[in-house]
Each structure stands twice: as C-alpha cells, then as structure tokens.
C-alpha cells in the first residue's frame, strides 16, 4: 500500500490537507505537513486541497489534468446568493477629496463588469458629496449609490460599516471593491465580518472566471515573497481591497452625469461610541512624493554610500524626477525611509523608473514592476532586476549615471 508524499520545499503550511484528510494521516510539524504512512489510504482527498501541489502519489497519475492556470473553479452557491448581481466600487473621500485609488478601481471594475455582463456601480458615503457623485459617473459608473449624512462627515468604522452593510443587503452586489488604504482596509474588514463573507486584502491583480462568476484575487504573501490567488466561491458579495497604483486610472468623460440612487443612513450620532476630535495633517508636507512622480531615479546596495546618492540626486534634478531607494539602501542609512520603494515601502507606477545598483529582490520588484518603462543599470548581468527591465545596461553605475547626467543635460540644452 502506498501513501501520499510531500514535497517539503513546496509546502507552505496552510494545513488545508490536514483538515480534509479523513484518516488523520497528515499532521503539522515545524510548519510543514508530514504524513503517517500507515494511516494514509491513498484516498486522494488531500491532493486537490493543496494550493501548491506539494502532495503527490508515487507513479500513478502524478501529472494531473488540471487546467493550465492551475485553478479549478467549482461553485456551489445557495440560490439566494446567486441572485447577487453587479460590481461595486467604494469611492473613498476625505473632506470632499476622493482618493485616486477609487478611480483606478473604476477602471478595473468596468472590465470585470463587462466580462460578467452586469452594471458597474459606485458607492459614495459622506457629507456633501455631490461633486464626487458626479465624478464617479464621469469615471464610468452606471449607477452611483449615495448616503449623504452629517454622521458620515469624518471616517469612523461603525457608521461607515453600518451604511455599507445596509446598501449591500438592500441592493445585493456580487462584487465589492475598495482601496487598500487605511480607510478601505479598516472598513472592508468590518463590513465583510458583518456580512459574513470573504475578503481578500491588498490585491495587486484581479480577474474573473466568467462561467462561474468568481473573482480571482491575487495578492502578495509572505512579505512579498510569493503570490497567492484567492477565491471566495460560495459567498456574496466577493470583497477585495486593492493596492493603490497597481491599476491604471481610466479615461474621465467630463460630459457624463447621472441620477444617483440615494439612501438614508438612519443612524443617530448618539449611537456611535467613537467621537471624532480632529484631523492633524503631517507637520512636514510630503517632501518626497513618489506617488505622483512621472520619473523615479532609484538606487540600491550598489550605490555604495551616501555620496553615491548625491549623484543620483543630480540625475533626478536634471530629469525632474523623484529619488527612490531599495530597502538595502535605506537600511544602510544612505537615504531616508520616505524614499523606499517595495513591499515595505511605497508602491509606485511612474512613466520611467531608473533602477541603479538595485539587484531586484522580490520585495523591491512588487513595488515598482508596474512602471511603464524600467531602466536597469547593474554590474551583475545575472541581477534579477534585468528580468523586469524594459532596457538594461550591464556596467558600473558610477560611470553610467554621470554619463546619463551629461547626455541628458546636452539634450536639454539643444
């Protein structure tokens, strides 16, 4: 009698297989699954449960017939949930200013709604939000749900959760998207729990299985070391928060407008146990603005020293660019944390990203690989950064960067 085998290097310790094994043949040891051969009956229940294909039975049918993208989408949706239709985007605002991630989500939401053949709707919560309501139409919303109430003036979890839950329960969307911001992640967690549905946080890619009407939500995990695709097949709405700046902002059609669907909040201020005192803006206005920079000149370990960054700074000045850095450079103390790009820093999406002396650790790549053009300069031809680069130059950045400064200057003067 054989038994299931484990590829330890593939096991991520998610315990999915342990749970499904009817014979208690699998157990966790040091974060990795192990098998008790005597107990295993080769029932194969664990094989599809494993997201990383770490389990296999020897010789027989090792190479399965799973679809190429590796995801079996099977849905067993209760009839009352099957009636949920439409894609919603929560439009986040603070004092009447919308967060740009909301518009990025409108673009993504539109694609998904078209694939599913349903409407794209925006949700606007706040006080005096008429301007935002209009903008939502301009960015492509077919419906805009509005709750305009003084209680919603400043963000607090409870009244916003109350409002959003009320709208969802009444209008029943199948997908609800929010920005992965301090507001969106706070609200989404609370809303998903009160709706008892699934939520996938901080997604960097969304897709949809049209037949099953299931959202394929992809996000980095383990500190950005791997990507995971997560499904919420049997609950509605399917909720995601999406990281700002990984998706592009759609075209804004100034001529569009529409009539919103207005609902009442129905929650008195006295019922709320959190009182807003004040908003204290950061003392120093953001000197470093990687978010909106068209060009970023970034340096990594290869820069070598503080002075190395002053040369990069010169290049940035010539190009009107912002200065970025990898974690290695920040940890070496050559440059402040505000400049850090990557998993633990900022996610950026400039038109041009110069990566100078950056090896391209995955932690860094997830923060900049959506840049339109990536130019990599590194003396190691095998550096991972070249795998994402639009243009790569193998060479000493201490020679190439000054040359870039010189030639860009010449070009400017012409």
């Amino acid at each position, binding site marked *: 009698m054989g038994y299931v085998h484990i590829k330890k290097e593939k096991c991520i310790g998610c315990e999915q297989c342990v749970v499904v094994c009817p014979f208690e043949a699998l157990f966790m040891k040091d974060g990795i699954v192990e098998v008790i051969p005597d107990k295993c009956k080769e029932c194969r229940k664990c094989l599809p449960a494993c997201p990383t294909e770490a389990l296999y039975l020897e010789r027989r049918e090792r190479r399965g017939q799973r679809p190429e993208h590796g995801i079996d989408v099977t849905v067993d949706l209760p009839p009352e949930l099957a009636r949920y239709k439409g894609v919603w985007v929560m439009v986040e605002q603070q004092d009447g200013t919308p967060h740009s991630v909301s518009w990025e989500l409108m673009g993504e939401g539109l694609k998904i709604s078209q694939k599913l053949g349903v409407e794209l709707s925006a949700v606007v919560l706040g006080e005096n939000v008429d301007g935002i309501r209009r903008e939502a139409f301009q960015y492509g919303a077919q419906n805009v749900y509005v709750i305009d109430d003084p209680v919603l003036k400043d963000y607090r979890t409870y009244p916003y*959760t109350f409002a959003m839950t009320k709208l969802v329960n009444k209008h029943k969307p199948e997908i609800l998207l929010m920005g992965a911001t301090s507001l969106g992640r706070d609200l989404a967690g609370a809303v998903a729990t009160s709706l008892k549905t699934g939520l996938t946080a901080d997604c960097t890619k969304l897709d949809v299985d049209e037949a099953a009407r299931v959202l394929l939500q992809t996000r980095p995990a383990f500190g950005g070391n791997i990507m995971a695709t997560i499904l919420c097949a049997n609950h509605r709405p399917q909720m995601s928060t999406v990281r700002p700046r990984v998706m592009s902002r759609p075209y804004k059609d100034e001529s569009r407008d529409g009539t919103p669907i207005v609902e009442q909040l129905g929650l008195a201020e006295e019922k709320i146990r959190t009182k807003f005192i004040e908003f204290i803006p950061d003392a120093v206005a953001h000197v470093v603005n990687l978010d909106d920079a068209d060009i970023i000149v970034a340096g990594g370990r290869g820069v070598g020293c503080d002075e190395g960054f002053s040369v990069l700074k010169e290049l940035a000045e010539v190009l009107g660019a912002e200065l970025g850095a990898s974690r290695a450079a920040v940890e070496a103390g050559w440059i402040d944390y505000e400049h850090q790009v990557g998993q633990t820093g900022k996610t950026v999406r400039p038109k041009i990203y110069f990566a100078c002396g950056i090896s391209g650790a995955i932690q860094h790549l997830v923060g900049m690989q959506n840049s339109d053009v990536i130019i990599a300069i590194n003396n190691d031809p095998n550096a991972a950064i070249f795998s994402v680069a639009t243009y790569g130059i193998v060479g000493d950045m201490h020679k190439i960067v000054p040359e870039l400064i010189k030639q860009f200057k010449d070009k400017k003067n012409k």
Partner: protein
Amino acid sequence: MHSVVCIKQVPDTTEVRIDPKTNTLMREGVPSIVNPFDMHAVEAALKLRDEYGGKVTVITMGPPQAVEALRRVKTLGVDRTILLSDRAFAGSDTLATSYIITQAVKKIDSEDAVDLVLCGKQAIDGDTAQVGPGIATRLNMPLVTYVIDIDSVDTEKKTITLKRSVENGRTALCVEYPMLMTVLKELNEVRYASLPNMILATNFKAEVWNKDDIGAEMKNMGLDGSPTAVRKIFSPPVRECGEMIPHGIEQPDVAVHNLIEKLSHNKTI
C-alpha cells in the same frame, strides 16, 4: 483595566528565501517569531496596566508549538496566557479566525470583564489586517485601527483618547471602551524583559483551550467557516524580457547614448 492581546506566531518573513531552482518558498529552517506588530500591542497593554492597574491576558491561536509565542510574551510579564489549539481550527481564514478568537474573548470576559482588546496592525505572513476588525465587529466593540498614540484614559467615563495614523496625517478620536484597537510599531518601544520574568517563562504552562472550551461551532471554523480559499500559489510574475543595451562596461558613453536614442524614439522622453 483588563486588556486581552491577540498575538500570532509567524515565520520570520525577512528570513524566507525563494529556492532559485524551483522558484518555491523555502520554509525549512525559517525561525518562528511573535508577529512584530503584536509585540507592540502587548507592550501597549502592559503600559496601561503599569499606569491604571489591572491585568494583561494574551491569547494566540495555533498548533501546540505556538506556546513558544506565549512564552516570549510571558518574559515581558503578562499575567495570563491562553493557547487556542484544536484540529478543528486548522484551515480557518480570517473570518473563521475572528470567530474563534471572539469566542475565546467572550469566555475570558465572562470570567473577568474585558476592557480592551489589542491586536497588531497586521501579521507579517498574511498582511491581511482583517482579524482585528473582524473580532471588533463580532464583539460589537468600537474599532480603531492603525493606532499610533494612546493619549489618555478616562477610567470614570470609560473612554480612551488616541490617534490613528492615516495616509497624510493623524486622526484624533475619543472612544468608549470596551473597544478594540490594532496598533503600529511607532506606538511604543517594546520593553526589555527582566531576568526574573525570563526565568519564570522557562517553565511556565499556558492554558490550552480547545473548541469545546470556547463553545465554538464546527460550521463557523476551519474550511466550513471560511469563505475564502487559497487556490494557487506562485512566484511573482516577471515581465516579458526587455532589451539589453550592450557596451555598458567598456563604453558607458555609447551605451547611454543608445539608451537615450531608444527612449526618444519611443517618445518616452
């Protein structure tokens, strides 16, 4: 003031490496640590105890080895430690996890009224930041995430004044407790354990609660209670291969010239 702190044992993601040959996660030999944000939640609770008296209870959910996480916080001088461990918990997503922890907090509360529940901002292995909001919602407690300052506690009115970090500043709030907060590293500095506490922690016994102890129902936990499921894990995608511009080593000026030509040609610049 009775605080309950929820902590998680996580693999130290800074030590996680990718096997370059198989492109998979190398988990073997990666040390387990207490989620760093959670340490700051424990510290916040201890500070409140130092100032206002009371008690700090720490709970964690995980396999029997997660007792090591409790041992670590025991060295800081917490009063009570509880491990939630049951086969039935395995495979729980954030919704199911928040259910299990909520059941445990309810039980603790029934023995000794809870004023405050604290969590770290998020766990470094999952980065979801969902369990804290989930517990607050289930317990019907006010929730404040990303707490960066605890300014004052009014034990008469039972309110806490604190600041929450948002993208471009801070929001000051006054919250009635019992409430739940998730905290940032900037909130405090984790204390250095005293030697007596270190020694006491070497042979302490955590209480262990299973699903029956907390009255948890099977349908709400494990795979049954989890609406989301990870269906695929892969290495971050690489962009289609770009163009290498030659002569960078021996003729940097030529290489740079060619690069700028290409950028102008494509109207990038």
